[in-house]
């Protein structure tokens, strides 16, 4: 058995702009692949060339060098109809068309499959219904697209792309204007579409957390202008993610895969205990820039602020306490505690 060839394959691709005789190269020497059923997220800082790459892959602009093959054929050799039947896009362009139902909008996706007058036959209607069902937007079918919320419209736009029956789906920041639950839902939807329908999906996003948790593959544009790909975990372990996104302001925690603002102050605290209260007390202290230790032996250290929580009833309103150089203070809430610590720091400086 031969191994299946990838649906999307970039070989030594160089992208950028050509103005008169000058070439402005945005990214070069990209060689990556995407297989059937894979959900990939394209990550990279603003202006790194994410949109340029999508535009090149969808043939809106020509590549400067190298090649792209779609399902085994050279991108340049495809007719526009062939291309539209293999690759569909969801763009950031706002689509607001009065008097157009969501169903009709999805129906526009049949464009490369219908005849000269665009008449929809029974198979076209079935495909539209399938696409709306797959994106869970069937209940929106009769609504006007102008009445849809951002999340609903985005799902209808994905259904429209599906109605094109492509093998590859490219999405340009589909989660940009969505609230958090809609973002998670949409990403989960895309991942399921890739896995269940065998689509190759590539989406650009700024939502690193979500990409780390859901993508099969990450395509990462680095500061050096190269494109690296791998499983999210690979990119965490080899330090590429950290390198790409860490700065003086933000630090990447390799253990958790989270980015946190760099608020490191060099102050240290001790919290002993394992209850839920202790856990969130530690979180609050980390947020305030503390290194938190749980080692009881270091109790004698004068630099160390010992923090804790009294059990219900015992301390009344002042449940949270700190002991600093033998002096004990009580606080009604974590807000009071962290506020006091930061004020103390300001006076120390």
């Amino acid at each position, binding site marked *: 058995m031969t191994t299946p060839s990838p649906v999307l394959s970039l070989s030594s691709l160089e992208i950028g702009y050509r103005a008169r005789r000058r070439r402005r190269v945005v990214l070069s020497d990209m060689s990556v692949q995407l297989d059937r059923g894979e959900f990939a997220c394209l990550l990279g800082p603003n202006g790194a060339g994410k949109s340029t790459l999508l535009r090149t892959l*969808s043939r*809106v602009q020509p590549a400067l060098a190298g090649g792209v093959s779609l399902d085994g054929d050279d991108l340049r050799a495809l007719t*526009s*109809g062939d*291309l*539209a*039947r293999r*690759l*569909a*896009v969801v*763009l950031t*362009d706002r*689509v*607001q*068309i*009065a*008097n*157009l*139902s*969501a*169903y*009709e*909008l999805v129906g*526009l*996706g049949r*464009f*490369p499959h*219908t005849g*000269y*007058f*665009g*008449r929809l*036959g*029974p*198979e076209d*209607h*079935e495909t539209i*219904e399938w696409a*709306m*069902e797959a994106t869970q937007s*069937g*209940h*929106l*079918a*009769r609504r006007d697209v*102008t009445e849809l919320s951002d999340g609903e419209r985005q799902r209808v736009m994905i259904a429209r792309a599906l109605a*094109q029956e492509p093998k590859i789906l490219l999405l340009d920041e589909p989660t940009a204007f969505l609230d958090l639950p809609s973002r998670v839902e949409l990403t989960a939807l895309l991942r399921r579409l890739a896995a269940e329908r065998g689509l190759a999906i590539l989406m650009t996003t700024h939502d690193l957390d979500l990409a780390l948790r859901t993508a099969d593959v990450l395509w990462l544009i680095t500061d050096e202008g190269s494109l690296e790909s791998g499983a999210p975990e690979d990119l965490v372990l080899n330090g590429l993610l950290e390198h790409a996104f860490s700065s003086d302001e933000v630090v990447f925690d390799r253990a958790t895969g989270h980015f946190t603002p760099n608020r490191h102050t060099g102050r240290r605290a001790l919290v002993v205990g394992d209850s839920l209260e202790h856990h969130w007390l530690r979180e609050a202290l980390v947020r305030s820039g503390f290194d938190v230790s749980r080692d009881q032996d270091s109790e004698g250290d004068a630099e160390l602020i010992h923090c804790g929580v009294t059990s219900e009833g015992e301390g009344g309103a002042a449940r949270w306490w700190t002991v600093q150089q033998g002096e004990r203070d009580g606080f009604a809430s974590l807000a009071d505690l962290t506020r006091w610590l930061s004020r103390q720091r300001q006076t120390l400086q």
Partner: protein
Amino acid sequence: MTSLAGTASHRQPPGIEGARSRGRTRALFAFSLLIFVFLLAVLVSLSWSSVRLPLDEVARVLLGREAERDAWTTIILDVRLPRVITATLVGIALGLAGLQMQAVFRNPLASPYTLGVVSGASLGAALVIIVLPGLTVGLYRDTATASAVAQAISGVGLVIGASLGAGTVLLAMLVVASVVRDMVIVLLLGVVLSALIGALVTVLVFFADPNQTRLFVEWGFGSFHRVRWDDVTLFALAVGIGAVVAALSMKQLNALLMGENYARSMGLNVRRARTLTLTSASILAGAVVAFAGPIAFLGIAIPHITRGIFGSADHRILVPGSALTGASVALGCGLLAEMPNSNLTLPVNAATAIVGGPIAFWVLLRMRRGWGL
């Protein structure tokens, strides 16, 4: 229904029922109503004018029999019928041209008028009416020959001149639209271009002799009276070409609804579709300006009235719908201009402004809720 035969095994997802045929009943009803209104408008236009003729006499003449009086037959066949056909063609042409331009520019205010196409056609017409006779007089010393040649030119020449003028401006606006992304600026540039061309026309009129000036000013009022039986074929041919292109580009116009990028991603050759559509719009608008003068407002208003009637954005409905609506509205404007039962006639442009102005107003007010396309 045949479309259900193939779907026996297909389970419709819940909630989607009826989405396939949304608006179908309304469209059928609207088309029937529009056809009825159009036929009624034709009959009434033939019967009501300075002299009112009985409807049954009109019907009899139309069916090829003689009217009660010979004069009535003449009036109906040689005077009113060409006028009714002219109004119908003007309505169809402006409805389609407006629809095409609004789709290509993705702007509810785009029309042959707002984009300077009509003023381009005016310049073409002014050149033919004012400058050409002077040239022919220069070429042929003999005034009789000169005026005969001028006469011959002014028929076909006016059409060609106006079409060329319209086409040139449209081409210029097309170039502008491909460079400038902001469509509001494109529209404003159209207005500016209109003013510039208007200035050129003013200069031409200023140096023209009074007779030609009067001809040109009368031409500017717009009229459905000018087209005789000899010219109807040519006018119908021009409108026919535009209508065929519009009918063949319904699918493309639908794709353009989503904007250039999406249209291209679905396999549409955007540049070709644009060029074809705007060429057809310029033939339509140019023919109208040549045969009936610069008719205002219908181009912008008719597509919006049609959208209102059908509640649809689908150009497979809007193209035939705009043609039908346009024909009826233009006939209505013609009727209003005739001021039935009086000896007065208004310039057609006054009537179209009275009908089209409020609609343009309404469209502008509606634009707050997204753009009304």
